[in-house]
């Protein structure tokens, strides 16, 4: 039994289980950081449409990846896993599914803001 099997392939399974919410975090960081830099550096005329485009495309991309993870949760989790531990695998599949839904909500909610708010103005 290799060390990673002895540890239940902990790193891989944790990474997959948390992937949806980590994607939410990445999305959040990207749109916030991106908008901040775009507004701080480029002047309004180029900066604003650029930032808007960036937010839209990042949001779209992350939504697609999230849906993909949600659909393939089981195979991602059990790839190469030792058999016998079906309880925790079923459980982790639940976790991925529910986290995917919550993350989708968070991502879309944040990304949608760009449709309603001026990008760089402070009020």
């Amino acid at each position, binding site marked *: 039994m290799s060390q990673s099997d002895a540890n*239940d392939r902990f790193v891989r*399974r944790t990474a997959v289980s948390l992937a949806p919410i980590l994607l939410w975090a990445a999305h959040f960081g990207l749109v916030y950081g991106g*908008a*901040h830099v775009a507004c701080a550096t480029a002047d309004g005329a180029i900066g604003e449409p650029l930032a808007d485009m960036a937010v839209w495309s990042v949001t779209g991309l992350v939504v697609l990846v999230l849906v993909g993870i949600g659909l393939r949760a089981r195979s991602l989790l059990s790839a190469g896993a030792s058999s016998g531990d079906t309880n925790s695998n079923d*459980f982790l599949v639940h976790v991925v599914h529910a986290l995917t839904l*919550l993350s989708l909500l*968070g991502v879309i909610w944040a990304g949608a803001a760009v449709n309603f708010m001026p990008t760089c103005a402070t009020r």
Partner: protein
Amino acid sequence: MNETSPHAQISPTPRPDGEREKLLEIWATPKGWRLPTAVNNTVIGLLYLGAAFVFFVLAGILALVMRTQLAVPDNDLVSQDLYNQLFTVHGTTMMFLFAVPAVEALGVLLLPQMLAARDLPFPRLSAFAVWAYIVGGTVFFSTIFYDLAPRGGWFMYPPMTLTEYSPGDAADFWLLGIGFIEISAIAGAIEIIVGVLRTRPPGMSLDKLPIFGWAMLIFAGMIVVAFPAVILATMLLEIERAFGWPFFSPDGGGDPLLWQHLFWFFGHPEVYIIFLPAAGLVSMIVPTIARAPLVGHNLIVVALIATGFFSFGLWVHHMFTTGIPSLSLAFFSAASMAVAVPSGIQIFSWIATLASRTKKLRLTTPALFVLGMLFIFTLGGLTGVMVAMVPFNWQAHDTYFIVAHLHYVLIGGMVFPLFATFYYWAPMVSSRLLSDTLGKWTFWLMFIGLNVAFLPMHLAGLLGMPRRIWTYPDTLPWDGYNLVSTIGAYMIAAGVLVFIIDLIRNFRIGESSNPNPWDAGTLEFLPQDVYSTRSIPKVDSLYPLWDRPELAEEVEAGAHYLPDAPTGGRETIVTSPISATPQYVVQMPGPGWMHFFAAVFTAACFLLLTVKVVTPAIICGVLAVVCCLVWVWTIDKGPDAGPVEIGGGLRLPVYVTGPMAHGWWAMIVLMLVAGSLYLAYVFSYLYLWTSSPEGWELGAAMLPDAGSPMLSAGLFALAVALYVLARWALPEPGGNNLVTPALVILGACALTGGVVNEVWSHWQAGLRPTDSSYGAMVYMAGVLTAQLVAVIVIMSLFVCVRQMAGKIDQVRCAGLENTSLLVYYTFAQALVGLLIVHGIPHVAAS
């Protein structure tokens, strides 16, 4: 005993005579003047909880003084200056000395019992954390009596807290005291993470982990990510106050908003750090009062995880009025509302569980506190959604509406569950239950008092009453509301007083004759003694005591795992992190003085530094290090006592190294802490760059040429190679050689050389940390790496001494392995640092 039970044969019964006596002797709690040496989680947990409760009462008394002052207009009971100290110390004590320690204490106290582990994996570490907190906290609190308390509010914003506006030592007490207590919280978090993941009973795969275990796991994970941000912030502010490196004052290119970002990146998650464990407690109590399994168990786990993450996307909602672009505000506003969803999931699940009950609801005291919590926390959550909306926030910012909101959330979300906990889990540690009658008095006084005290504050706030004012004229329409608030505050105090009377009358430490008075389903209600449970049960469901009523009897008869003490000392079973398959038996240290003295000296070192008596501070620091080394000297007990039988035909080793070892996991968590700290630094560096780019443009001209960072990088890489070689060169067990010590010393020297070269080259180029925020940031990278290198040097010397004492070899190499892990991490961090410090200015200049 049930003969047909599949578990009855794990260990043969009846157990031999004298086995229980031996367990009792091994796990005995030291008595009398040796009590400070105790490390049992129940003793340490109670001490921790007791201390946190004392701070709650003390900070509550300060609140009463404030409320008395505010009861009528134009009052002069306390001066403005004292009032400023009062709310600062009240807020700081409640947040840092009461709320976080209280939930951490519950983790120490309850987790091992819920996991039927004999103790947490690093008993002395939690004892160290507790003593450090008690000493440090007491000194911090007493500053209020000597007019030495800080006045900057619990979030201590600069420029208010810079030397110019806060001269003297008061602000330093906050910075060093709180920074230090955070270190103790991190120590506790490491303990909890490793404990939850690695000391579950056999069979308790993650899907069967009780919700409180999840809550504490996420709590600890959040501490690991969030606390380093505020530790960095306090370091920067303290360095600016002491040495004038301009991080926050705009004159030198600093930015006071940097503090707000760092503080709230910690401060908002802090609210959930407090709330999640409390919610976890509620999720344990609700099924018992409903006599039904928690509805949507898996969803609650997900809700906890999601809350943990989302709460890091909220920090700017404390800064809505600082002139950040609207779109950015909208992101944070969205996250602030999204976080309400998982909280909602939990609340609905609790309600559904209560509704799914088949018997009549028994309104015991814990049940009342849980229902009260649902009501109060929901109200606080609703006002939270209100202030998450940017336009409303602009109106309510810094008014009593906020004071009302935060107390509803904190008291509803944390204090009420805590009181429910006191009543619910008392039988675990006390031979008597607390009185239900007095409990109900406590509840109603606190519940009504809370609403009387804080509901009117919403209105006073909407009428424009700002927070943090020491008095107000009678021409304003606030006096009625304030008087009512004050009356409510006294009602809460009366409730707490009744509780204290109940404690005095009924709380007696000892084993209860009826360990499961509520008919609960989880392991902490198994029969217990100082050694925890007699044997460690095999678990196969979420509510083992409900599903297998005979379990208590079996466990008590010693029919499950580890009914004896095969290594002859303190030990518990380590299981794999997901499926909880038994892996090895960990030998744990017993009582000792050294962690106690280490805590006292560490606290003394920090406090002496605060009042700037440097030499004694250094002496205390050295003594603390020495105590730590003596303490860890005996921890690595080696493989000699194993392998051992634990029952069920399992023979397990008693010593492992590498990714399976619990010590290895602790090192990884520690590296995550260091990584978070460094990320916070990188954020600060980039932030100050965008806020004063001129400094960076000038800085590019002052950079040493590329050879110097190359040399540093080379030295760091060399160190890594030397530590890898040192591992190979270890002797066979029983042998001895001097190759490893030599390589290790060389490695430590290479690391030191790398840091010194980097710092020296900037100094040579004429850059000074006091010149500009740019210079300050460059030297700060050196400071952060240097502190790691200092730790590595100490650990390396320790490894050398152990090797020469014949206590390190090919098999028994945990000490060297842990040092090497830190070396690898330091290498990575230093490289990132070099890249940033030598790369960004070029980008800035071009």
